[in-house]
Structure formats: structure tokens, C-alpha cells
């Protein structure tokens, strides 16, 4: 059964903007993105929204709904009372372009800073071999759809613009962890994660995990394991002593 939904949608650009009130006719079973599309079709033809798959897999329609970072296509209207006003704003960590669309290029710049996968030489028959048990930890991280909601909610950059140069953010700690745990990768990414990506700026308050639409345990399975790997290298005197005595190189310090 349909009803009239009260919405407040932020409209504007880099010069300014405001929350505007709308009433949109919606149907049972719809999501916030459906309501915004109807709004765009009937009342605000120039409303800017970034979207693509409508299935929670492309990571395009990230926004903040009632102040919480979420995918618009995965937020059901049935989560709210029909009498409730739903407020939709763009992600508030990134520079605004127009209406609900932000400039997320910060994330792509950070992605470029991560050295690519560098595998060991192949076996004599030209193949690389891995056991399933060795790669499945990283497979959780491959579920990332790059919606950047974790980046949006991370207070390190959300509340401190000046940290953006030194801090890669949870999405990329996920990538560092994925590569560092990869059985064939040859880089030592602990130093990079600590020094270049600002891993130690994270105070593990788990907001990235809370907002992840793919339910990746970013903090427990990626960030904290990377922090522990850095501890192996920098803050554990036993490991440090072992590396000095046995003159193991950085790659070998991580047990194979």
C-alpha cells in the first residue's frame, strides 16, 4: 500500500545549499533510492544522484540517511515509520559537487599509493600455486564494493581535513591487509601501512565496520591484524632481536 513520504534532501553545490522539504508518493517494498528517483522524475528533474546497479553491488549510491552513512539502494523505507521524515544528504567527508554527488577522488589518489601485487616467481611449470586455506582470509576483503562509506564515516578524515594527506583510510587498510596476507606477495607492506598510509592514526573505534554494507569485519580482520604485524616489526623486542641475530630480511620476518 502506498503512502506520501516526507523527505528532506540536501540540494546545492560548492557555493552553498540547504535541506529542502518534499513529499513523495512511495509504494510498499521500495527503498530510499526509489523515492529519490520518483522525486527526480516528478518534482526535481535536475536532482543530482550517483547510482548504478540498484542492488548494493556497485557502491555508487552512497549517502547519509538520517545522518548515517548508507547505500540508498539498500535502505528500505519500511525501516522507518510512514509518518517519519527521512533526511538524505551527500557524504559529508568529501568535497561536494552537486546535490547528493560528492568528489571521491581522494580515494582514488590513495589507491594509487599502494604498490601493486608483486608475486613470487612461478613454479617450474609456469604456474602459481596457492592453497585455498591460504587465500580465503583475503577473499573476505575482495567483497569490498568501494562505496567509500567506511572512508566517509572515519572520523580521522571526516573531522580533520588536514589528516587526508597522511591517512589512507579503512578501505585501503583492507587492501594493505589483503596483499600482506597473500601467500605469494613479496612486498613488506607493514612499513608502508604504518608510515605512508597512517595506520597508527586509526584508533579502532569500528565505525568503518558498522557502516560496511558488505559486512566486512574491517577492524577485526584487517586493521587490527595489520597493527599487530606492525607491532611484530617495530614494537616487539623479541621479534626485533630475532631479526638482528638471524639477519632475516623484512619479508621473512612475517612467518611464511
Amino acid at each position, binding site marked *: 500500500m502506498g503512502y506520501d513520504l516526507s523527505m528532506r534532501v*540536501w540540494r*546545492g553545490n*560548492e557555493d*552553498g*545549499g*540547504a*535541506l529542502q522539504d518534499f513529499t513523495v508518493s512511495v509504494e510498499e517494498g521500495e527503498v530510499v533510492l526509489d523515492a529519490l528517483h520518483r522525486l527526480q522524475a516528478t518534482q526535481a528533474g535536475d536532482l543530482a544522484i550517483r547510482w548504478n546497479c540498484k542492488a548494493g553491488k556497485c557502491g555508487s549510491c552512497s549517502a*547519509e540517511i*538520517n*545522518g*548515517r*552513512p548508507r547505500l540508498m539502494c539498500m535502505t528500505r523505507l519500511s525501516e522507518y515509520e510512514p509518518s517519519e521524515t527521512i*533526511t538524505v*544528504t*551527500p557524504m*559529508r*567527508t*568529501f*568535497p*561536494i559537487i552537486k546535490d547528493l554527488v*560528492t568528489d571521491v577522488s581522494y580515494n582514488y589518489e590513495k589507491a594509487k599509493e599502494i604498490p601493486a601485487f608483486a608475486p613470487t616467481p612461478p613454479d617450474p611449470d609456469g604456474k602459481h600455486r596457492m592453497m585455498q*586455506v*591460504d587465500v580465503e*582470509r583475503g577473499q573476505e576483503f575482495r567483497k569490498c564494493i568501494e562505496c567509500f562509506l567506511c572512508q566517509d*564515516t572515519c*572520523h*580521522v578524515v*571526516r*573531522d*580533520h*581535513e*588536514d*589528516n587526508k594527506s597522511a591517512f589512507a583510510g579503512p578501505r585501503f587498510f583492507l587492501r594493505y591487509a589483503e596483499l600482506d*596476507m*597473500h*601467500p605469494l606477495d613479496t612486498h613488506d607492506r607493514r612499513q608502508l601501512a604504518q608510515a605512508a598510509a*597512517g595506520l*597508527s*592514526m*586509526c*584508533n*579502532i*573505534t*569500528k*565505525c568503518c565496520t*558498522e*557502516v560496511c554494507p558488505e559486512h566486512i569485519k574491517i577492524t*577485526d580482520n584487517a586493521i*587490527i*591484524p595489520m597493527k*599487530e*604485524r*606492525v*607491532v*611484530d616489526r617495530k*614494537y*616487539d623486542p623479541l621479534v626485533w632481536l630475532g631479526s638482528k641475530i638471524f639477519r632475516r630480511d623484512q619479508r621473512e620476518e*612475517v*612467518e*611464511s
Partner: protein
Amino acid sequence: MATGVLGPERARIDKPTLRQDRWWIYPAVTFIVFTAFVVYSTWRAFSGANYYASPYLSPFYSPCLSTACVPGASDFGQPISFLPAWFSPALVILVFPLGFRLTCYYYRKAYYRAFWLSPAACAVPEPHKKYTGERRFPLILQNIHRWFFYAAFLIAIILSYDAVIAFRDENHEWGHMGLGTLILLVNVVLIWLYTLSCHSCRHITGGRLRNFSKHPLRYRFWTFVSKLNGHHARFAWASLISVALADFYIYLLATNTISDVRFF
């Protein structure tokens, strides 16, 4: 100049947060419970009295290693003799479990949110103008968590010993059990669950490996610890409450406020 979500490049929205849910409940409850625990444990740790009611020894005072310990409380001897008599024996040992919890990855989340408001909740701005994370002193010391884990592991063994010797009566005859035994037993199980579910334990048992397939036994340990690790926060709360309750029960016994309920 405004910064963060109110910065010039961001969408111009006057309110720092538009969250309408009761996001403040978690930090408020955490603040109240943690503060209550700190007040209670500080009082008990500094009091230096009423921590032993044969056969029960308070977990705040175990192992009781200084010469100030009351008779019967020092099953592991009294090797610490250089401290003045007024120095509570609890202070010698509490630094280790306290350090373990203070540097614990879960507690860090909890107190950064509840006490430092950094941030109080997701998408709620923090009040601080500068943020450097755990890069500098003193927060860089959070990296020694695993050393406190080693100490906490040893203390968990000692608390297990305390739970076993609680199967005696007040005259140290074996084969008895009271409510105090049950409380110490539940407490030590929760302490073990909290200690073994620690992120550092998870890393040490197998998390640091790149090839699980070469270490099948460690992989099984890691899988077990990973399962526990998913409940680490729950164990952190449960064991915090149980250790305080165990101490309080022994305090009531030691002050003769109540008598132990004997099952057999």
C-alpha cells in the same frame, strides 16, 4: 575557520550531525559502568584489607606476593619484601590486568568513544580540533598490548589455581564447594574467554602467518581463537563485571557481613 563536516569544501549543513537515533546510549552506559568499576577497584586496591576469606582469595589480590599479605593468602610465597607495609599487595599485581584491559583493542574503542568522544558515535563529530591517533606518546604505548597479554595469561593460570583450591572448606579440607567456589569458577571461565579471545592472542596463534597450509595445527588454533574473538567485547564486559562481583563477595565474607553458602 570551520573544519571537518562544517569545512568549506563539504556540503553546507549547519548541524554537526543529523543522526536521530539514540546514539548516545552506548557511550553513556560505557562511561557509567567503567567509571563505577574504576572507583570500586581503586577503593578495593588501595584498601589492602578484607581480600581473603579462607579458602577464597580475591582476584584483585591474586597472586598475593608481598609481605603485607594476610596469612593464608600467599600460596606462591612472599618474594616482594622491599615494599612498605602500608603498600597494598593488590597494587603489585593489578598493573598487569589493568594494562591488559587498558591497551585492549575493544576497551580502546569503548573508552575512546565514551571518555574521549573521539568519536562518541559514528558520524557524530568529535570535539577536538587536532587528532594524531596512536602515533605519539602516550598512546603509542598501546602497541605493547601483547606484553600485557602474556602477563594476563599467567594471571589467568593463577586465577584457575585459585578456583581449584576453592573446592576446600575454611579449614582447607578438600571436597567442598560453596557459593564462593561457584563465583570464582564462573569468573575464571570468563577471564579465560576474555584472555584467549584477545586480538593479540589471535595474531600470535596464527594470524601472523602467510601460509596456513604449512601450519595446520596453528591454523586450527587460529580458527578457534577467531571464533572466540568475535565475542571479545561481550567477554570484556562479562569478565569486568564478574571480577568485581567476585571481589565484592569475598569482601562481604571477609568483613563477616554474610556467611558463605555451602553446597557440600
